[in-house]
């Protein structure tokens, strides 16, 4: 069953990744040594054949020694490779055991404190205009997992994993009922480029996101590409939009696409928009997302198609539930959350710092200034408003700690005017390419009519 649960889950996770990599490396070494040994033997045979053509026995003693060394090396690499596989499997199993044990303890604790947890949620809501703050939203969703239809399965999983699985099921159901299965997301409108000036600080992201939020229903479905220098671009993705009046891929189905389909269906349109904005293979691309946009941003950082084309190196999310999304280690990420905002808790898991490149900053509610400026009637209230996150971005930029500054400075923008361009996307019925159409016609031609 592998090694027992130890103390540091991150060390187990890291060791597992290292062992996987070493196993792959040793497989490569195996192939190389095999090829070298084959070449040595072939050379000796060819040399013998050449010698026979002049009736002479010819052999290179050094080549013999070399071949025998390689036979020994091959035996050693075979053993090492097998051992590495065993160690990898064992540490992987240990990690699984650890997660399952953690999940069981997590369930036990919550189960024994249900009344207390419910009281906490209500108390949190009372102090937050009857909206659950982030942490209480997470607890509420965890409690809901006790009432799942498939109650008997999945208890070895953490609450976070269960919630993600449930969201995936819901996304499939939602797609089915909204008749979205055979639709693809395509660019239907390209606005002319616009040059804007920002002050270059972190709140520049707020200024740029403001160009996409609350711009009226006709602006629904738009995202923006910003060119910050010759070879660097930012993709700005908006929050959830009402898709009833004007259809938008950033509607509630979009949330399902984010969690259920890893935003895969947005990748083509975004790649197209980047290319139309001048991005080339290898250009640096930063993703910035507010609310739902942050879910897509986090998912697309690992998208194979985009990663294969561009250098995805930075990500910024504002008020987005992204704790359950794996973000590649080499990505610098900055996530802002407001403690009173229920939206970052919608995945049931606290968003933690995942490594030295990831920074999650949690703020203690909107400032008095923001409270005065905004009204509370929206579904998620002031804590989730973009302007609140703009205020937090400003506050964060005042942090003088060197370790924080080092991370923040990487996100600063130039003060010179930068090129922005909006792209409107819509869900359209999937069309067949010419090749696909020809294939269908060809296939139909092979079908004989019935007698």
């Amino acid at each position, binding site marked *: 069953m592998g090694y027992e649960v130890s103390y*540091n889950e991150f060390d187990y996770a890291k060791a597992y990744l*290292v062992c996987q990599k070493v196993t792959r490396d040793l497989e*490569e070494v195996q192939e190389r040594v095999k090829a070298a040994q084959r070449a040595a033997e072939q050379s000796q045979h060819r040399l013998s054949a050449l010698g026979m053509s002049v009736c002479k026995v010819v052999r290179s003693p050094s080549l013999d020694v070399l071949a025998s060394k390689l036979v020994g090396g091959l035996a*050693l690499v075979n053993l090492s490779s097998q051992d590495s596989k065993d160690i990898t499997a064992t540490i992987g199993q240990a990690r699984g055991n650890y997660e399952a044990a953690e999940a069981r303890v997590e369930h036990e604790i919550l189960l024994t404190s249900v009344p207390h947890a419910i009281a906490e949620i209500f108390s949190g809501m009372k102090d937050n205009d009857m909206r659950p703050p982030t942490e209480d939203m997470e607890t509420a969703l965890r409690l809901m997992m006790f009432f799942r239809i498939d109650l008997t399965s999945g208890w070895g999983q953490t609450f976070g994993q269960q919630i993600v699985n449930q969201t995936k099921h819901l996304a499939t159901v939602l797609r089915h009922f909204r008749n979205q299965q055979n639709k693809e997301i395509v660019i239907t409108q390209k606005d002319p480029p616009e040059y804007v000036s920002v002050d270059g600080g972190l709140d520049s992201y707020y200024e740029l996101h403001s160009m996409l939020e609350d711009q009226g229903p006709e602006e629904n479905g738009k995202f923006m590409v910003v060119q910050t220098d010759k070879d660097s671009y930012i993709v700005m993705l908006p929050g959830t939009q009402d898709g009833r009046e004007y259809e938008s891929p950033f509607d509630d189905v979009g949330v399902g696409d984010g969690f259920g389909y890893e935003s895969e269906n947005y990748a083509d349109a975004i790649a197209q928009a980047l290319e139309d904005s001048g991005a080339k293979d290898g250009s640096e691309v930063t993703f910035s997302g507010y609310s739902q946009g942050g879910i897509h941003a986090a998912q697309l950082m690992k998208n194979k198609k985009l990663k294969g084309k561009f250098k995805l190196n930075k990500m910024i999310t504002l008020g987005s539930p992204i704790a359950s999304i794996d973000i590649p280690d080499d990505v610098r990420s900055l996530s802002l959350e407001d403690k009173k905002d229920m939206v970052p808790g919608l995945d049931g898991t606290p968003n933690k710092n995942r490594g030295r490149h990831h920074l999650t900053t949690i703020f203690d509610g909107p400032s008095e200034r923001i409270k005065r400026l905004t009204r509370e009637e929206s579904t998620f209230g002031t804590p989730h408003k973009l302007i609140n996150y703009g205020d937090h971005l400003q506050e964060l930029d005042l942090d003088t700690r060197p370790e924080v500054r080092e991370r923040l400075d990487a996100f600063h923008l130039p003060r010179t005017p930068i090129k922005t361009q909006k792209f409107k996307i819509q869900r359209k019925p999937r069309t067949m390419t010419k090749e696909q159409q020809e294939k269908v016609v060809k296939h139909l031609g092979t079908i004989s009519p019935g007698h």
Partner: protein
Amino acid sequence: MMFSATLDSMAFQLDDAQKTTRFAITQLDSIGSLTWQSQAGQAFYDRVVNLSSWLEKLNQVLADAEGYMSSATREIQELELEIMKQKLVF
């Protein structure tokens, strides 16, 4: 030379195998900086150290083999030349 392409390819394979082995050793070394407090964790780390020592041996074998590459190349060149001379005599 008839054998140059094969010998070049062999040299490349050996060089690459050595580099990858050394990289794997460095990777395994990084596990040492992690925390292994439990007995089981220690047992795991002991196996990693053991694997690392095997890879050190493998690295040595590959280095030895690479050492024989140059003498084998020289020998093959000489033998090839000798055979060519013989052929000309015939």
